[in-house]
């Protein structure tokens, strides 16, 4: 009986759930340590994230960002590449989106502009990922190091451009002018208002549909195309891939470019959707959260959507928590996020043997009872 393994639904469903619960229990102790009530904290986080329309809007808005960056990280993971540069790629991608919008928003409505903006953003993000990819594939510089470096270069470049070039004349803040109203993506409250439902103001916009489309496309690409097969093969065993005639260098560069292009879609959500202008630090850590999302989502689009939702809820619920109870500092939310990442990412296999035993015992009992 011991050679029996866990069924898939336990492995990808129950185990992560247990890990998340563990993370929350430990977080609860941390909150107890600073003298606050963990139950109250959980209540604020959950009602803040899902309890009312504005909260849901913000949760899904963050989720959108995390889906993009999570997909970006996961596709690189499949090729055995650790792309830590999602932050910079999203930043530069947002620049591409913003530049395209700024130059065409006088002439085109949003639906005509959107394809151009996506193309420009993807091109910018891909270009930003291309250099580390090329260095990895052809020069052997490790992609982890170079992508981290490129995050800093991206932020330096953006500050330079926003302070010196793109700044709206006479403005105090280093940010571009606002996009024309007609060129910004419709927000969810606009969509709902069109069918006569009134919901609260939130930055959630149609980008979330783009995120879901990207999930399907990534799934198709990875499991139903020749390129996807090559990507996964490199990830499993690069030598075998070379032996079977795959041009690994080329595939590595292509994978990283796709990854960068996906990260860049954060720019669609933020620049064209929520902020309606290019401004400093709009990525705000989404690129790094994407790593955790991909880890937790087991690099599968469905998992990534669920993990993104969790992190989106944590982000919005956490903001609600520090709003409602100022004695719980903002950093506690970072601690909770960190614990979730720790348990779901680094310690993902810790509870597996124990869970396996319990599960098998339970099923054994059932079987013997049936007999």
């Amino acid at each position, binding site marked *: 009986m011991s050679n029996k393994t866990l069924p898939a639904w336990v492995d990808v469903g129950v185990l992560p759930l247990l890990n998340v619960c563990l993370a929350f229990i430990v977080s609860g102790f941390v909150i107890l340590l600073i003298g606050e009530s963990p139950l109250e904290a959980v209540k604020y986080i959950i009602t803040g994230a899902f309890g009312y329309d504005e909260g849901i809007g913000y949760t899904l808005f963050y989720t959108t960002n995390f889906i993009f960056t999570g997909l970006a990280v996961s596709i690189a993971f499949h090729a055995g590449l650790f792309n830590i540069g999602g932050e910079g790629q999203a930043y530069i991608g947002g620049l591409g989106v913003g530049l395209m919008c700024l130059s065409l928003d006088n002439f085109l409505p949003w639906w005509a502009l959107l394809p151009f903006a996506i193309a420009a953003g993807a091109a910018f993000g891909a270009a930003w990922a291309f250099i580390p990819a090329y260095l990895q594939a052809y020069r052997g510089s490790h992609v982890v190091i170079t992508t981290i470096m490129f995050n800093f270069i991206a932020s330096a470049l953006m500050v330079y451009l926003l302070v010196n070039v793109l700044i709206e004349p006479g403005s*105090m803040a280093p940010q571009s002018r606002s996009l024309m109203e007609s060129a910004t993506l419709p927000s969810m409250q606009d969509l709902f208002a069109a069918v006569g439902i009134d919901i609260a103001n939130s930055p959630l916009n149609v980008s979330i549909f783009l995120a879901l489309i990207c999930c399907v496309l990534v799934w198709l690409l990875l499991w139903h195309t020749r390129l996807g097969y090559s990507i996964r093969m490199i990830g499993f065993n690069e030598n075998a891939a070379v032996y079977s005639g795959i041009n690994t260098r080329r595939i590595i560069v292509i994978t990283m470019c796709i990854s960068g292009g996906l990260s860049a879609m954060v720019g669609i959500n933020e620049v064209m959707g929520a902020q309606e202008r290019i401004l400093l630090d709009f990525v705000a850590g989404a690129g790094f959260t994407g790593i955790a999302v991909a880890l937790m989502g087991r690099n599968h689009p469905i998992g990534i959507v669920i993990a993104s939702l969790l992190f989106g809820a944590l982000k919005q619920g956490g903001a609600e928590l520090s709003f409602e109870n100022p004695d719980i500092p903002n950093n506690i939310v970072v601690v909770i996020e960190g614990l979730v990442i720790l348990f779901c990412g680094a310690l993902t296999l810790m509870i597996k043997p124990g869970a396996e035993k319990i599960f098998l015992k339970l099923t054994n009992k059932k079987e013997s009872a049936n007999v």
Partner: protein
Amino acid sequence: MKRQFLVLSAAIALSTSAMAAEFKPAVVFDMGGKFDKSFNQSVFDGVEQFRRETGVRYREFEVTNPSQREQALRKMAQRKADPVLAIGFAQATALEKVAKDFPNTKFSIIDAVVDLPNVQSIVFKEQEGSFLVGLLAAMKSESKVVSFVGGMDIPLIRRFNCGYAQGAKYAVKDVTVISNMTGSTPSAWNDPVKGGELARSQFDRGSDVVFAAAGGTGVGVYQAAKDAGKFAIGVDSNQNHIHPGTMLTSMIKSVNVAAYNTFKTAQDGTWEAGFNTLGLAEGGVDWAYDQHNKSLITPAMKAAVEKAKADIISGKIVVHDYMSDNNCPSL
């Protein structure tokens, strides 16, 4: 009858205490948080002082991403917080939207201008204070080279830099001003190691007085100046006490006072919407002179700086504002 009176007076007492409790000020800090050893922290000091003196608790929120600015301001207004104090130029766009939706709530914003009937905009003329410390730096310098270490490279910090350069050149025509910015991310406000490196490289290039307008990064700059036997100039609050003998002076920008006054005036009913531009004349910016730097400031320097101060207030000297045209003629 007596009992009724008692109940009534109790009810009145309750309702008055309820009214007193209704004063609910709120502050929304910007990215960087209230412990950024710089701008936000200065605000925090101001509102804490208010809390200690009056015992009134205030609501607060620290923004961690751009979308939260509008969310937080809106939420404060929804929860009937009044006044709501927004910190930093980055919140101007969000405040504009929210203030329109809550016309009966009082909003104040520091470091930006929002032109609405229920918004008080508080901005500082950092260039004027920087002019004075630039003048002192140039007079103190023996090498005729003075330098500037900025935090994050944004227009606001260039305004400090520009006033500083103009002041230095006003005092000594052929002085050289070296300028460096610490970085391009918000971490530049809190990077004392890099601040020290920049200061040392400026000393190597001949500078002997350095002005740091870089928040927590300044600590490293001052330490480097002390180690090299040069002079340094503090910023925001009076930092002369950090290294007496090294700190030539400090450029005071009274953000804490502005934050305190916002709550205080709202409480006693004298809060007014409109623009509040705080320069030398209004005491919003100034140079620091106390027992720690007395021995470093010669009578000639003191006379010159006081004269320049009077001339700026009277309009005889016009200090260029970098933000007016995104250009600095003195650099």
